[in-house]
């Protein structure tokens, strides 16, 4: 018997690009992150054929998790077709041979930059978020060593002081995105720069959320059905962006996160940020049978968990 018959055939690239040791390390770190919700686990961020800051963290997690039966969706700011999303999707498909989709319901693994889809994810889906700055305390504590100490003490007073200062100065909290959240009553984490609109979607979500920062070499997780509360004063509740009255120009959809498109003459028109949902709604309008899942927010921007958003309406 010859060696060639016993061994696997030679391949130019490993399945899913990363070598088996890299994937095993990532999987172990992901397990650790799931075991300690919100805790930042350092990992050896590998080189991938893509510049740091373009989703290398999310890509490595996706590559470590992806199996041959998976279906992948990649989103960039809600958009399936932007250069970044298209490149990542093509790369993942080429290195693994898995199916790709733009339909949230059909995907088993969703890699996203800065958005959580409007349609509810289920227990069989995994959301991977790309994170530029994993350390929520870096804005108030420049030293990573001291920030880790603060995390271990649960000392988040400086973040609360930031909220206080915002309220004193602007009468509202000035975080546009990346609103700090308390995960499982223990660690405060940066939910990656998702808009405030998406922040409540993490609370008691059915799906697993993994957040990974390639440049900063940290990953963390929100396991399914975990409490995730935005930091808020008892008497000044957390608020999502007020987009009531914004209507999608092509489908007439309301109550979802919109992109504002400036028009000639100073007016604005609005467009659904989640293009996967937008395409499905457009197809539905032509009379096609399309399955549209339940959404986190209804048409009047009411969140599906009643009473969770004390500040709205």
């Amino acid at each position: 018997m010859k060696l060639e018959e016993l061994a696997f055939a030679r391949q130019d690239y490993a399945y899913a690009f990363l070598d088996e040791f890299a994937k095993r390390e990532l999987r172990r770190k992901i397990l650790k992150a799931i075991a300690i919700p919100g805790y930042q686990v350092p990992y050896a961020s590998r080189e991938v054929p893509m510049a740091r800051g373009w989703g290398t963290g999310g890509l490595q997690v996706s590559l470590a998790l992806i199996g041959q039966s998976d279906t992948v969706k990649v989103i960039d700011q809600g958009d399936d077709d932007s250069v970044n999303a298209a490149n990542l999707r093509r790369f993942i498909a080429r290195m693994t041979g898995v199916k790709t989709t733009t339909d949230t319901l059909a995907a088993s693994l969703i890699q996203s930059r800065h958005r959580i889809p409007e349609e509810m994810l289920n227990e069989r889906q995994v959301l991977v978020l790309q994170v530029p700055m994993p350390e929520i305390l870096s804005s108030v504590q420049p030293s990573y060593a001291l920030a880790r100490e603060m995390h271990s003490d649960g000392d988040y007073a400086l973040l609360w002081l930031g909220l206080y200062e915002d309220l004193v100065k602007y009468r509202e909290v000035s975080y546009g995105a990346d609103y700090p959240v308390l995960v499982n009553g223990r660690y405060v984490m940066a939910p990656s720069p998702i808009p405030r609109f998406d922040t409540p979607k993490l609370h008691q979500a059915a799906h697993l959320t993994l957040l990974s920062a390639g440049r900063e070499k940290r990953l963390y997780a929100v396991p399914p059905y975990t409490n995730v509360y935005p930091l808020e004063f008892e008497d000044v509740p957390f608020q999502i962006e007020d987009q009531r009255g914004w209507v999608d120009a092509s489908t007439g959809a309301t109550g979802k996160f919109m992109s504002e498109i400036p028009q000639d003459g100073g007016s604005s028109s609005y467009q659904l940020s989640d293009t996967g949902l937008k395409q499905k709604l457009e197809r539905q309008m032509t009379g096609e049978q399309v399955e549209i899942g339940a959404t986190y927010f209804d048409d009047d921007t009411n969140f599906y968990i009643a009473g969770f958003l004390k500040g709205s309406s």
Partner: protein
Amino acid sequence: MNLLEMTLDAPRLLEMQPLLRVKNLCKNYGSLRALENVSLHVYPGEVLGIVGESGSGKSTVLRLLNLEEPETCGTYQLEIPELTGQNLFDLNRFQKRETRVHHIGIVYQNPHLGLRMHKSSSGNVAERLILAGEKRFAELRRAAREALSASEFPISRMDEPPIHLSGGMQQRVQLAKAIAMKPKLLLLDEPTTGLDVSVQALVLDTLKRLQFELEMTMILVSHDLGVIRTLADRVMVMRGGRVVESGLTDQVLEDPQHAYTQQLVHAKL
């Protein structure tokens, strides 16, 4: 009434337990012996002054009492229900922080050490309450307003950052921050040094009034004998990391026994 049957109250100071007990405190910085066997007691509501020249270890004592630095040897006890009999130096980092937040206030000579210069003044005061777990915005505002007005800070300027304020005002913000949680112990490290004489007098007035109203125990470090004379009940003279003399303020300043204290009092006069 039969005079023989009447029971007299024992003098208050004989019955009272000291609030703070420090025994044989020493501190080394590398090979330098900064403190050598410093022991002190302070009774509730009392003001203890510590005088001495630069480098005598006055500020080191305060830093150790504020649990900012590890000690080299010695014990430190505060007579507080949940901490009775506990050597505070043995607490872990988290417990030390809790103790500092709830029971100890400090005012530094340099406001940059005690304040976040670019946050609002009221925010600086509120930070103490946030650390203690207060999560109501209205309550934070109320407490900040109360503490700032207690330290005679103009309320109309409560949301200005300390960097825009005068030295005297900055000291008042520090003071408000220190008293926000109504601590048992207030540590003052040269609180009026660097202020001009009239402002100094105003800050001293405030301190005296607060001490009277809140019955706080204070340890006041200063090289200015005038400040010590105004505020302190008892005084401790330090030199080269040792206590050379201690006693009632009037006694020590009128009739100094140790050669160094004599020199100090004469230099002042």
